[in-house]
């Protein structure tokens, strides 16, 4: 290994090719941008050996085998990740087939999530035994027990990346095991990297972490082949894209829908995603007599997401608390005028969108009405949003992260700018 690069052990929960929300694409985009300037190892619960990234070692815990006899975990050299077989003593709770199943579950969350998180930590805390680590970079609470354990064991600098908090998901009053995990990791961390200033404020307000060590790193987006599906109907399509959970504001979605549909007979809401409030929302829509004005697509694969983006007329995100909101960037990239909740991080980087407080559904409905009705408004928003999107790169995010690595280390970091010139 060339020794001028930092050895980064990056702990992720979601990663391609398996994606459920914004976390996976964000980790991937950042890893890709960091790869040329670091020795990067990404650890995920589940990896697909066919999915490879240049200059990145991806280790899926599902690739490990449990040696019943010696009670060791083994990563056979047949996996092609290391030249030799990796083998270490393991004393975690889950063993054998159970351990393997936890990491291979198609649903990376599910009811056994706490078990999965614990197993991930039990395995990952041995990684210093066969990998050089300069910094530990952990994404979201699912990897924090692992990160904290490694930090305690090795005393290596820890950076925790905050994509979403328990206070976003369950409400500001949430004080539970997950909250405690987040609090402990952020307290122990040398740097906290939230995805927006909005989340930085949340961390200060609800977790009491000292402001000086919190440095926002805005998410970005991979450039996508943008296409448009022309439709010949008179329908005006509003797209809601995201999990249908309290955090995403289904209540306000319904209120806005009701208000807009009362005035605009041609409007239809495309609601893409699943979540614990999906059934509730479907029922409520029925009750409001709007079932023919809403299309519930259920969970959609990325390919379908792109098709939706290409065929809708406006994007709507009424989130109650959205640390970033990557899908808004996707919508912006697909030239959709965006109506966003002010309680979101993405609204800090998209300046040419319409923003209102999530609960101000009069205003939200009014904005949607306007972007669907007024061509000039839509055109100006789209034209100037395209400029905003042009300036949002993972390289910028990587530059900020490298600065933080540099800060927590004495090691020399090759400047991204210089490297970029060489490339």
């Amino acid at each position, binding site marked *: 290994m060339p020794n001028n690069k930092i050895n980064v052990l990056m702990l992720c929960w979601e990663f391609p090719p398996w994606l459920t929300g914004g976390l996976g694409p964000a980790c991937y985009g950042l890893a890709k941008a960091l790869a040329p300037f670091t020795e990067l190892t990404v650890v995920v619960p589940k990896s697909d050996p066919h999915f490879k990234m240049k200059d990145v070692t991806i280790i899926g815990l599902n690739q490990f085998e449990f040696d019943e006899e010696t009670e060791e975990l083994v990563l056979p050299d047949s996996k092609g990740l290391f030249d030799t077989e990796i083998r270490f003593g393991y004393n975690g709770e889950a063993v054998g087939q159970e351990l393997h199943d936890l990491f291979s579950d198609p649903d990376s969350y599910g009811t056994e999530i706490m078990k999965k998180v614990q197993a991930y930590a039990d395995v990952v805390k041995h990684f210093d035994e066969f990998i050089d680590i300069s910094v530990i970079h952990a994404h979201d609470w699912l990897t924090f027990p692992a990160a904290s354990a490694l930090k305690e064991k090795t005393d290596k600098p820890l950076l925790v990346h905050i994509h979403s908090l328990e206070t976003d998901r369950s409400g500001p009053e949430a004080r539970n095991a997950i909250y405690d995990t987040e609090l402990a990791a952020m307290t122990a961390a040398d740097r906290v990297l939230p995805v927006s200033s909005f989340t930085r404020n949340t961390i200060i307000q609800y977790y009491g972490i000292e402001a000086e060590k919190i440095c926002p790193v805005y998410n970005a987006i991979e450039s996508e082949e943008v296409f448009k599906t022309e439709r010949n109907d008179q329908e005006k399509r509003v797209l809601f894209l995201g999990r249908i959970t309290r955090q995403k504001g289904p209540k306000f979605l319904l209120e806005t829908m009701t208000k807009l549909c009362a005035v605009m007979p041609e409007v239809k809401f495309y609601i893409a995603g699943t979540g614990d409030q999906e059934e509730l929302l479907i029922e409520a829509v029925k009750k409001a007599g709007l079932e023919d004005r809403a299309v519930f697509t259920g969970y959609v694969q990325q390919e379908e997401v792109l098709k939706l983006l290409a065929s809708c007329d406006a994007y709507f995100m009424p989130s109650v608390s959205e640390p970033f909101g990557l899908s808004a960037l996707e919508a912006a990239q697909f030239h959709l005028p965006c109506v966003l909740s002010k309680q979101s991080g993405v609204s800090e980087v998209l300046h040419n969108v319409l923003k209102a407080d999530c609960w101000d559904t009069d205003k939200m409905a*009014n904005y949607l009405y306007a972007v669907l009705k007024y061509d*000039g408004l839509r055109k100006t928003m789209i034209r100037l949003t395209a400029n905003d999107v042009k300036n949002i790169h993972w390289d910028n995010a990587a530059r900020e992260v490298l600065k933080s690595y540099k800060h927590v280390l004495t090691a020399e970091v090759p400047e991204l700018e210089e490297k970029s010139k060489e490339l």
Partner: protein
Amino acid sequence: MKRDHGKKKNTASLQKHASLTRNGSGQEPSRSNKAAATSPVAGTTGERAAVKAKVRQQKAKAQKSKSPGTSICFYFQVHQPFRLRNYLFHEIGSNHFYENYNMNLEILNKVADKCYLPTNAKILELITRHKGNFKVAYSISGCALEQFELYRPDVIRSFQALAASGCVEFLSETYYHSLSFIYSKDEFVRQAEMHRDKIKTLFDVEPTVFRFTELIFNNDLAKQVASMGCRAMICEGADKWLDGRSPNHVFRSPGIENFSLLLKNYSLSDDIAFRFSKHDWEMWPLTVEKFTKWLHDHADNAETINLFMDYETFGEHQWKETGIFDFLDYLPEYVLEHPDFAFRTPSEVVATYAARDEYDVPEFTSWADEDRDLSAWTENEMQKEALQLIYSMEQTVKESGNADLLKVWGKLQTSDHFYYMSTKFWADGDVHRYFSPFPSPYDACVYYMNVLADFNLSVKEASVKS
């Protein structure tokens, strides 16, 4: 809030020097010398020649003292738009009240108390103190006059007192402070006449000098205004079309007889209007002595120095605490210390000096921003759509014969609505350079378009009825 948006707050403090150099190098054949050289003198002997020379000198001196010297021409713009409220989409078709009554009232009260009343009082006092040797001109939009009548008749009375002094000129403009000339000549003429009538009614004078919204100007507009019986027009002294010449003379527009142009000296005007309290300006603080010296430095080469600005400069853009009122208080006295300087109103200036040169402006110019063009009102798609829509209603509105609709239509033409939609200083999210009653240009557009949608319904309804 309209006039506090600092839209023209360019930071071109260096323009001052450019202006001085430019003016300094301008060729200024002296009128008095010319008069002296042609004055007939008799006699042939050497003695008589000496006497002749003396007489010539005296005559020249006498001539010189009769020469009009340099004029300082102040024109102040007074305008307040009828700002719109957050008119929501579900009101379309049912609520026809569009204005933000509270905000309009609040702003009018604030500006009346901070600017209009105290400045009017000061100007009147200066006129009295200087026995009629201090003069200024105002252009007051119909929207402003209407709001004064509605909310603050005391402001109207104070302007009437100024009118009675005989030292104040009122200019002609479009009643609704609109962009009408660009979109409809008929509407332009209608609004100019409306405004002229309003001024006549309130101040018992007939304006003869015209100025268009935000000093928008081009050759065609000059032709139009001349055809309406005005003798002169006020415009920006734009570098692009002055092409190195000084703005400090009376100009003519190509092909128009007996019609003069007065060009704003933007450098000296903006020293007061924008830079007066700018602490990072290298000339700060702007003392009366300093400013007067800059004016007097032009004594040999300027006929008129046109200081045109928003009236809200006094007390509103530049707060009382900056010393702007003291500056105004002392300025006439200092300026008049120079025997060749006099304050004149625009119509006096054009009566005093013949046009010296041609100001040929084929494209639209204005006094807004550093670009000095129309882009602040007409650049983006929102503005284009809104303008297209409001002017597309002209025929229907006029044919409806409904006076109320005609009034509302006029108010909706006020240029401020389109200015608020400008994304020139917004696109990069720099909120600090965006001044408007709305939080964003998009909000300005959304509410304007909602209002227009409702108004369009009313117009159609009226049209069916008629």
